């Protein structure tokens, strides 16, 4: 008799729990969205959107598990944000007055300093180059065709162009780097390729790039060298690749503050 009563009560409890699961899940995803996003507009949008997503998910308990996943992710994001904030505060306290504006890369004023950066970390060298070109770029983790990153520009209201960027830090720049980039520009149907070199390019390398021809902007009629070679010395002297205005969405550029703001 006792066993029957217990099983009935347990059944009722399980039934009740599964009934309130969707309600809990919706509350949980709303809480997650409001904690995860610092932009109030996006937080409100995601809160509503995730409620719809939870409703679309089949199974009452699965809804709750999904919501727990979002909540766990939000807690991690909040934790990371808080940790970063505290580290920033500590760093500010440790920085002596007058040193605040001295960033690691802002002191790179000559080729030797950039060479030292490349020898210490090729990745940071590549990031420094990006900060000089000052356009947000998509990193190619696997450097197929020698392309390290790409960036975009508007051709007209409905079409965009692609600029492929290849960064080479060695002391010797063979012509094959230019040929590879020309091949990548053609294969990727990109508009422009930029080869950034730590070493000064030889005349044959510049000639190879010059012979790649020009790309003509279909709207403005402006012409741009199809493949361009620019050295670190050029960048340090303030010269920049010749491209149409690059698209700068508002996200944080490496060592460059908020790019596009």
């Amino acid at each position: 008799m006792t066993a029957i009563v217990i099983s009935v009560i347990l059944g009722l409890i399980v039934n009740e729990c599964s009934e309130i699961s969707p309600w809990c899940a919706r509350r949980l995803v709303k809480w997650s969205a409001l904690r995860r996003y610092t932009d109030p507009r996006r937080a409100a949008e995601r809160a509503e959107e995730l409620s719809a997503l939870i409703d679309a998910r089949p199974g009452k308990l699965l809804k709750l598990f999904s919501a727990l996943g979002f909540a766990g992710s939000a807690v991690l994001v909040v934790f990371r944000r808080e940790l970063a904030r505290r580290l920033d505060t500590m760093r500010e306290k440790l920085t002596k007055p007058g040193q605040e504006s001295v960033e690691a890369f802002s002191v790179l004023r000559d080729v030797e300093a950039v060479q030292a950066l490349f020898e210490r970390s090729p990745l940071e060298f590549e990031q420094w180059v990006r900060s000089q070109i000052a356009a947000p770029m998509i990193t190619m983790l696997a450097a197929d065709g020698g392309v390290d990153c790409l960036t975009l520009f508007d051709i007209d209201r409905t079409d965009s162009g692609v600029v492929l960027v290849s960064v080479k830090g060695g002391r010797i720049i063979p012509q094959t780097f230019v040929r590879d980039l020309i091949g990548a520009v053609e294969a990727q149907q990109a508009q422009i390729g930029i080869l950034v070199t730590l070493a000064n390019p030889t005349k044959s390398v510049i000639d190879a790039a010059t012979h790649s021809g020009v790309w003509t902007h279909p709207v403005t009629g402006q012409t741009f060298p199809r493949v361009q070679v620019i050295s670190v010395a050029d960048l340090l002297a303030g010269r920049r690749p010749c491209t149409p205005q690059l698209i700068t969405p508002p996200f944080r550029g490496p060592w460059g503050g908020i790019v596009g703001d």
Partner: protein
Amino acid sequence: MTGPPRITGPFLDVLEVFVSALGSNTDLHGWAIMKATKRSGPTVYGVLDRLEDMRWITGEWETQNPDPSKPRRRFYQLTPTGRTGAMALLRERRPQSLRRDAATKPGLGFPEWPDALPQGGMA
């Protein structure tokens, strides 16, 4: 967004779904993308956040859910910039997926893809 966009597996998976949906009149919302990519919700929404920050996608609320008792959904689509960027990225990293789309959806403007891409070294 705390750093420059990095190309990860989930990022490419989500782009593949968007590119596959081009021209097929498929409405893409969060749950549909999760099902298509077989990725978890936080992962997919992390990618959607990045794509929105990059202005590669735009979201639009439906007027009303077909089931009036349910909340409305938000549908996403590639912007012109996003389309160009996504195609360029997939052409670089997952050319096979574009070839598949070009074969199954002729007339969508997918260009011919080369069989081999040139090889080169990193900096």
